[in-house]
């Protein structure tokens, strides 16, 4: 066995007399040490890249206006998320009206869209709060749901709201019925006048 110079001095020394094992760090060459220090310093910077700091959201929304052409009520919210630390392309989830949906994202990573649909009676008119969660928040939310705890306590990344005006249920009386009734009324007046003339 080839013995290197560094370990030669340990060869004949008994166990009890061997020096204490030191951290591998101190055994490394200088360049190695520098790299580790740099990595440690850079860690907070790299780690903070995962979390959106100081989020602001700008949202546009659409809700179903009438039931005559829609079978279900739908809420669509399109929003853009701006992080103070310039983070993009993160996965977001939204909770609205008791439903949790993932947000689809555009290619440039800034615009998101969520949509919720249900029967007309299940989504009445009013203002709904949209709680937006990132990955971390979402997993906390799921955990809370699984353990039966209230999901209200999980703090969202940011919130926005959507206002649903309510759906128009269509006219009370059909237009042709109104037209027919008016026409019949006019004819009836003419008929009575004619009868009185012929009397």
């Amino acid at each position: 066995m080839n013995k290197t110079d560094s370990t030669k001095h340990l060869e004949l020394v008994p166990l009890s007399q061997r020096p204490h094992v030191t951290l591998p760090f101190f055994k490394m060459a200088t360049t190695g040490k520098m790299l580790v220090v740099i990595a440690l310093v850079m860690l907070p910077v790299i780690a903070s890249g995962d979390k959106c700091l100081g989020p602001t959201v700008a949202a546009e929304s659409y809700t179903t206006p009438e039931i005559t052409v829609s079978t279900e009520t739908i809420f669509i919210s399109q929003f853009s998320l701006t992080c103070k630390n310039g983070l993009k392309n993160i996965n977001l989830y939204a909770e609205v009206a008791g439903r949790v949906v993932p947000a689809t994202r555009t290619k440039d990573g800034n615009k998101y869209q969520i949509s919720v649909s249900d029967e007309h009676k299940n989504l009445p008119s009013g203002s709904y709060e949209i709680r937006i969660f990132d990955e971390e928040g979402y997993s906390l939310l799921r955990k809370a749901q699984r353990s039966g705890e209230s999901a209200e306590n999980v703090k969202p990344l940011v919130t926005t709201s959507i206002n649903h005006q309510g759906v128009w249920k269509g006219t009370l009386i059909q237009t042709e019925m109104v037209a027919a009734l008016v026409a019949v009324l006019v004819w009836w007046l003419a008929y009575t006048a004619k009868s009185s003339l012929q009397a």
Partner: protein
Amino acid sequence: MAGGKTAKLSREEELLLQDFSRNVSTKSSALFYGNALIVSAIPIWLFWRIHQMDLYQSGILFAAMSLVSTYFVAFAYKNVKFVLKHKVALKREEAVSRELMKKLADDKKMTKKEKDERILWKKNEVADYEATTFSIFYNNALYLVLLIVVSFYALKNFNPNLNYVVSVGASAGLLALFSTSSK
């Protein structure tokens, strides 16, 4: 009868004949056909916009049915006018004669016969006009009721072309039929 009187009587006779004949004057005829054409053109707009029939594709159909409808509606106008004219004349006779007598009372030169003739002529004219306009009003109202009921309720689920032909044809036909009642 004496010659002088014959002329006046024949004018009276003329008036009476006019009264009892179903023929209308040219002016009345023009009025009737004009109105009938307008009323028959209304369903075109209805079917174009609501039943979504293309104007150019169905152009020939629209034109043909409008002409048919115009004929029947004018026919109905004439009949109803004729029936009404006498009744109207009876009702308006008193008012017309009173008005004319008041107007001609100061005129001593006119003989009573001439005054009577004038009253008769005026009565005829008034009755004619009132019967014409009432006939147009009544027939238009009935035509529109028939059209709306037939095209929106009876033929709701049919092909638009068929809907147009049958509803216009039926409305005009029924109108003509109802007008021939003697009451």
